């Protein structure tokens, strides 16, 4: 049936990711927090450590390590920096449509460069008219002579300014039922990132808006076939997007638990560590329970994904559970710190802010419930 242990090799993957996060990423965190910048250096580190190549098949220059390995890596990175894990997971999300739906030419053209970090990807679906309602998308495309003209605006896009290769969802100007995903590349006239967001959490992870004004996209940049856009976008977001959020959330839960344990062991009240007090112990127990449960949900879905099975429902459950749990864990960690929990030199303040950005990313908790109820009622 099920073996709940990681293989020797997976433990080594985890070791690589943990050491990478602690040694290479941790030093960047303070700058990212202070300035909401610093992502160029971080992206260089991610590329050098082969973090972006994890899901790309070997024959296209990637490592082909699979989605369990991806989840392990994201978990470990998020434990140190949720912002970094988010960036990396969205690169992966932008890459996924090429892997699943790209033509041989497209795969050969883009995947090797994604693997080395020479090109960076993202996916652009959300608009002011809704992310939870992708069909309400107002970015339009008009067919021309062997080309398509795109017009519209996308918002809350992670890696909006850093990604030079964006998978953009648009609706046919003449047919509101037809959606297509296009590969929109930096340098195309009329395409540019515009407004940058200042998020309360995941600072240092670039989020912003992109604008397309009569962008002429060649026909070979249609990804997954004309009219298939919703399938392309939703498949990628359903597995890889949600799966990535699970990684971010699990890492954050782990960080919250470690901070809570450390503080409660060191903090002396009434003559001994507060870890001796049941109220504190119970909070820690809840954090532990949620972490154990979240891990099982996440790795179960990832295992299915590795087997090639459809896993978007399982990921919806995992995404809902872990992102909600991370928010709870962050609050509990802050509470355990007492007054110190409000002081910025304690990382739990960052954990609290980061946790709230996990919720609406890759589908809100309410949307997850819509999906899960559909699954249960079918």
């Amino acid at each position, binding site marked *: 049936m099920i073996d709940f242990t990681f293989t020797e090799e997976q433990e080594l993957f985890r070791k690589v990711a943990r050491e990478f996060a602690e040694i290479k990423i941790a030093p960047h965190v303070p700058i990212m927090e202070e300035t909401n910048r610093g992502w160029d250096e971080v992206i260089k580190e991610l590329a050098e450590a082969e973090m972006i190549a994890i899901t790309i098949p070997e024959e296209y220059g990637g490592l082909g390590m699979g989605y369990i390995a991806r989840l392990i890596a994201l978990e470990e990175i998020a434990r140190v920096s949720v912002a970094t894990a988010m960036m990396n997971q969205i690169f992966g999300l932008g890459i996924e449509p090429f892997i699943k739906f790209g033509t041989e030419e497209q795969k050969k053209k883009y995947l090797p460069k994604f693997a080395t970090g020479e090109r960076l990807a993202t996916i652009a679906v959300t608009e002011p008219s809704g992310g939870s309602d992708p069909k309400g998308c107002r970015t339009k495309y008009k067919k021309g002579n062997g080309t398509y003209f795109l017009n519209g605006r996308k918002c809350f896009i992670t890696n909006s300014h850093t990604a030079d290769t964006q998978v953009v969802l648009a609706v046919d100007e003449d047919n509101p039922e037809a959606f297509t995903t296009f590969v929109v590349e930096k340098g195309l006239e009329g395409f540019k990132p515009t407004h940058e967001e200042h998020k309360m959490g995941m600072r240092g992870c670039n989020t912003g808006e992109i604008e397309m004004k009569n962008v002429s996209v060649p026909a070979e940049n249609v990804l997954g076939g004309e009219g298939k856009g919703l399938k392309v976008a939703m498949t990628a977001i359903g597995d890889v997007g949600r799966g990535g959020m699970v990684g971010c959330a699990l890492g954050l839960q782990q960080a919250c638990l470690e901070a809570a344990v450390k503080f409660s*062991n060191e903090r002396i009240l009434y003559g001994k560590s507060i870890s001796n007090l049941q109220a504190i112990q119970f909070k820690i127990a809840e954090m532990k329970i949620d972490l154990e449960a979240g891990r099982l949900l996440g790795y179960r879905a990832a295992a299915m994904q590795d087997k090639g099975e459809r896993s978007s429902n399982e990921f919806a459950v995992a995404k809902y559970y872990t992102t909600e749990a991370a928010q709870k864990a962050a609050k509990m960690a802050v509470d355990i710190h007492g007054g110190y929990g409000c002081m910025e030199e304690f990382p739990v303040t960052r954990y609290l802010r980061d946790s709230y950005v996990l919720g609406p990313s890759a589908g809100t908790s309410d949307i997850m419930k819509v999906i899960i109820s559909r699954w249960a009622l079918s």
Partner: protein
Amino acid sequence: MEEKSAPVFVVAEQGEGEIRSVSLQLVGKARQLADDLGSKVGVVLLGQNLTKVAQELVEAGADLVFKGDSDLLVPYQAELYSEMIVNIMVEHCPDILLIGSTFMGRELAPLIAAKLETGLAAHCIDLVINNEGILEQKIPAYGGKITIVCPEKRPQMATVANGVFPNPVLDIARSGEIIPIDVPKEFPLRVQTLEIVKEKSEGISLETASVIVAGGAGAGDHDGWHQIAELADLLNAGFGSTRPAVDAGWTELETMIGQSGKMVNPEIYIGVGLSGELQHMVGVVAAKIMIAINNDAKAPVFEQVDYGVVEDCRVFVPALVNKLKNNKAEARRAAHVN
């Protein structure tokens, strides 16, 4: 030999005509063990211009000093030294062989032990003959002390650091035999010390410092380490460390105090940001006053010191340094006024 028991031997080490303190200490200890066993103390001494040193060894308690005095024996050559020492061991079959855990000793001892196919205990902090006449070798481990024995093979070998045993009182009236031994002619050396280079040693010598500040993992990073260094500086103290600090790269191995590092004997010891692991604490042989600063109230160090401060050293040390600086400044101003 017509003794009741086999002798206790020491491999002595000298440099530039001076005997190493650890060698004298081990001869003193060997004397005590030999008296317990009713046997003699033998010493092997290799080097050049050894007359004075050989005599000192007798005064410290040696009955026999096997002296190899030749320019071929300077500097230390592993294969030649081990060959000559092993020959003496085979001829005299000692019960016990002690070697100082100096750089030379730490390399030479296992070479000898392997050749003689006998057992060896490293970095001992005590040696005792038990009721069965076996040498009990005590070493610190796992937060306590473990006893090692080598019941069958001979000699029972142990290496001991400088400072574990006291300096013996030299008795100029003691007499002993000094036996010259020959260096094997044309001995092929596959490993050859070409030269020994002294490097500048900085700072107050830990072995002689009367105040020592030791820093550990609690320093957190280079900045935290510099804070502790500043404290040591202000107190005119020797600045030592624990293994985690060395491993983190904040300081060199030479500053490490402990079982496999230096043994120190200060009046005042202040342990900062260290947990009190036995491997380190055993290096503090004796101190009048011991103080610890650590943020973990449960740290074992608080059971081994006279005064404890439960605070994050990264917060406490700067505050302490500040206060000391202010006091100094005030004292200077007062001196000026007067």
